[in-house]
Every structure is written in structure tokens, then in C-alpha cells.
């Protein structure tokens, strides 16, 4: 598509000056730059030439500058998805929220046994799997966290009840590290250590060892 009508020399010069300018320029400034020429016609011609193109010549106050057409601004900020694995800490955090929700950060920490960086929860919220679900009505009113519908979708769960219980985890060998000798002892007929009782508080969760596990002294 070759231009039928070539711009005249002054218009070309104005175009080049505006293109190379680091700041918007007024018609007078452009004219001074070009040896005192009157550039108003050239500016009008350029503005009309660029109208509808990917770039446009605009006037802001008294100054002119070239800019990307506003409807194409999205091209300048393109998003690219970068797959990234959830860190170990974040995965644990997510698991605890899923099994115990709603939980506060302090509760998560007490279950994990280590401090949880703020960024970890942020990550989970950025991923869209966790949301703040209000505050617990205890002193300090801590924020409590719960999973989102996206969480269920992502992990292919119909509901949180689909998460495997402790007994299933153990059967799958997922309750490592547990010493073998102990494990042998722990296979007790009473085996009432089922979970996840979705609503158990973490204190309960920590005290959920069945009496059958009591190995008492045999000296008695």
C-alpha cells in the first residue's frame, strides 16, 4: 500500500521531530526547531494522516505528541502466564486450610509447628485457592482463611469431604516419617483415628490419638 500522496518536506520534518522528541512539543517549539517555520498546517495534516492508524498524533494543552492509539494500549502490557510450582510451605499451608477451614494464621502455624510467612498466604490467595473468610470472634479478632470454589475445581474435588482421611493417608504410606516398629504397634483394632473431621479445631486435631495407642509401661 504505497502512499499515493507523499507528505511535503515541512510535514516530513515535523513528523521526524515529533517522533524523536522526548517531550511533547508546542507548535512554536517545533517551528523554532525547524528554523522558524509555521508548522500548524503540517500538524493538522499529520494528525489527520495518523487518525485511525496504530499511532496517533494528539494535542494535550498546547503540546503535541505521538502516542500509541488508545484502543491498542493493551498491546503494550501483555500478560504472560508463567507456570510455577507451589512451594513446600505454601502446599502445607493450603493443605491445612483445606482440612481445617476456617483457620487463622496462628492456628495454621500451630498445626505446622513452624512460622508461616505472610507471603505464603498471599501466594495462595493470588492463586485463587484461598480467601479471607472473616474474623474469628476471639481477642485480637484474627482473620480466618478458607478455600474457594476454584480450589475444589483445581483439585477435582466435589467437596472438601472428598479429601482423604488420616486412616487413608496412613494406608497410603503418607504419614511419614513414622518408624516401622511403632507403626506395627499402632495397628490396633480400636483404630479410631479417622479424620478429617472437617470442623475439628486444631487443638482437637492434635489430641486425636486414640487410647489404643497408649503403650503404657509393661512393668505394671
Amino acid at each position: 500500500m504505497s502512499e499515493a500522496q507523499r507528505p511535503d518536506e515541512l510535514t516530513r520534518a515535523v513528523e521526524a521531530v515529533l517522533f524523536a522528541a522526548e517531550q511533547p512539543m508546542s507548535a512554536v517549539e517545533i517551528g523554532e526547531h525547524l528554523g522558524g517555520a509555521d508548522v500548524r498546517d503540517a500538524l493538522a495534516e499529520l494528525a489527520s494522516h495518523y487518525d485511525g492508524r496504530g499511532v496517533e498524533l494528539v494535542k494535550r494543552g498546547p503540546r503535541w505528541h505521538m502516542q500509541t492509539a488508545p484502543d491498542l494500549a493493551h498491546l503494550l502490557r501483555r500478560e504472560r502466564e508463567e507456570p510455577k510450582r507451589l512451594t513446600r510451605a505454601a502446599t502445607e499451608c493450603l493443605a491445612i486450610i483445606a482440612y481445617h477451614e476456617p483457620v487463622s494464621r496462628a492456628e495454621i502455624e500451630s498445626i505446622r509447628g513452624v512460622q508461616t510467612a505472610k507471603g505464603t498466604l498471599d501466594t495462595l490467595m493470588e492463586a485463587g485457592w484461598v480467601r479471607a473468610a472473616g474474623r474469628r470472634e476471639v481477642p485480637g479478632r484474627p482473620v480466618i482463611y478458607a478455600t474457594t470454589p476454584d480450589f475444589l475445581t483445581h483439585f477435582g474435588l466435589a467437596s472438601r469431604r472428598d479429601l482423604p482421611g488420616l486412616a487413608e493417608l496412613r494406608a497410603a504410606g503418607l504419614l511419614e516419617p513414622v518408624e516401622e516398629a511403632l507403626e506395627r504397634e499402632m495397628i490396633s483394632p480400636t483404630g479410631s483415628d479417622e479424620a478429617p473431621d472437617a470442623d475439628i479445631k486444631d487443638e482437637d486435631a492434635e489430641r486425636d490419638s486414640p487410647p489404643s495407642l497408649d503403650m503404657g509401661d509393661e512393668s505394671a
Partner: protein
Amino acid sequence: MIVDGSEPGMLWGGDGESAWPDQRPDQDVASEERERLYVELAGWEGPLDLLLDLARKQKVDLRRISILELTDQYLAFIDQAGAMKLELAADYLVMAAWLAYLKSALLLPKDEQEDPSPEELALRLQLRLERLAAMRDVGARLMARDRLGRDVFARGNPEGLRVLKKRAWQCEWFDLVQAYGQVKARTAPVVHMVRDRMVMTLDSALSRVSSMLGVSLDWMELRQFLPPHADPRLRKSALASSFVAALELAKQGKAEIAQDETFGPLRLRAMKRGKE
């Protein structure tokens, strides 16, 4: 000085361009002849550069250059510098010596020539000068092109293209469940409690040992006091507790302990009343 006929110029004097300014200073500084020469000399980047400049003053194609004439000019230049006691870098002098040798060889009758012939040496010098001249010329042409930022300009204030990285977090169902399993395994206090109870307390050892002592009057080895079918780790604990219990009983005067050798078996029997 030069006997092998190799051409100097590859002999780095040690202070090549680092010692010589790249740009020739303006001539207006030089009023005196001496100073002028010195300034000029300082402007050359080594003998090859100086030779090229002298060659160009002959204003002929480098292929038709007279090497003899060039040699004379170079030697005259060096003589002049020497007469003014200017310090010359060693490679200028090496080149001078080599050119003097080349000149004499060129003037000698042909049949006394050795290999390589002086013609070949002269040609080699000519080829080198040509190549340096060619690079100098195209260098200048390159610099004279319409250069970006000097003659042509990119957009003065580009908006810039940004690619925002959005992290797509990945975590699989298995990772999640495994992580929970590990949290529970790591922190469940039950596990620790169970492990802690694999012991025989001192109290139970004391009552066990003293009751067993009452039954037998003979020496018994300490290990005989341990529960017979206990888990190995419980046995270990029981051994320690029973030993302490034995010491306690001995202290109370209820038992006596004997050991025949270091690390030998520890024997134990009830104290006979009469001995007290």
C-alpha cells in the same frame, strides 16, 4: 641486527598504542620543528602506521608504491628523530633496521640473493600496508554512515513494551494430600508420647528388682531382672532403670552388687540380714 629477514612491526615494542595518544594533536601546538616531529611521531600507532602515512604521501596506488623510496623516507624520518634525541619506541628502530637491510638486499645483484627474495619481502610489506589501508578506509566509511542516535533517531519517548509475568501456580492433588500427611506426621504429639513411654520408670524397676531379689538368695545377673520378652528398646530402658534401682537398693542396704572385672557382668543378691 636482523639476519633472518623477518619483517618487524609484529615486534611489539611494549608500549604500542597505550603509550601513544590515538588522536593526533592539532598542529598549532607545534611551532618548532622538533616539537612538530615529536607530536607527529606521537600520533602514529607504530611503524606500520607511520609507513602507511609516508606511503600515502607518495600519492600513488599502494600497489605501485616504491618500496625503496618509502624506505628512504622512513629512514630519513628516524634519522631526524634520532638527531633531535627523541626517544623512539624500540619497534620503530627495529623497523628501521629491517628496512635498511631490505634496501641493501634490493640493491644487491640477483644471484647473491637468499630466500626469501627481497622482492618477496617488499611485496609482503606492501600487502600489509594495503590491508591496513583498506581497514582504515572502510572504518572511516563505517563511521560516516547514517548512525542511529547521530543522524537518524529512534523514537524519543517510546512507551515501551512490557510483558507482565503472571504466575500460574501449580499444585497437584497428590502434593496437597502428601503435604498434609507430612504435617501430621511431623507434628502429631501422639507419636512422641508413644515413643516416650517405651521406657521402664525407676519406680517400676525398683519394685520389680526388689520383689525378684526377695525370691532368690543367690547371685543373679542384672539382665535376669529384665522383662523377658520386651521390645528391644524397652529392654534397654529397663536395663538402665534396673541398674539405678540396684544402686538404690544397695544404698538402702537391701542388696549387694559385685562385678569381677571392668564391663563384666553385674551381679546382684539380697543382703543377708546377719551381715548388717
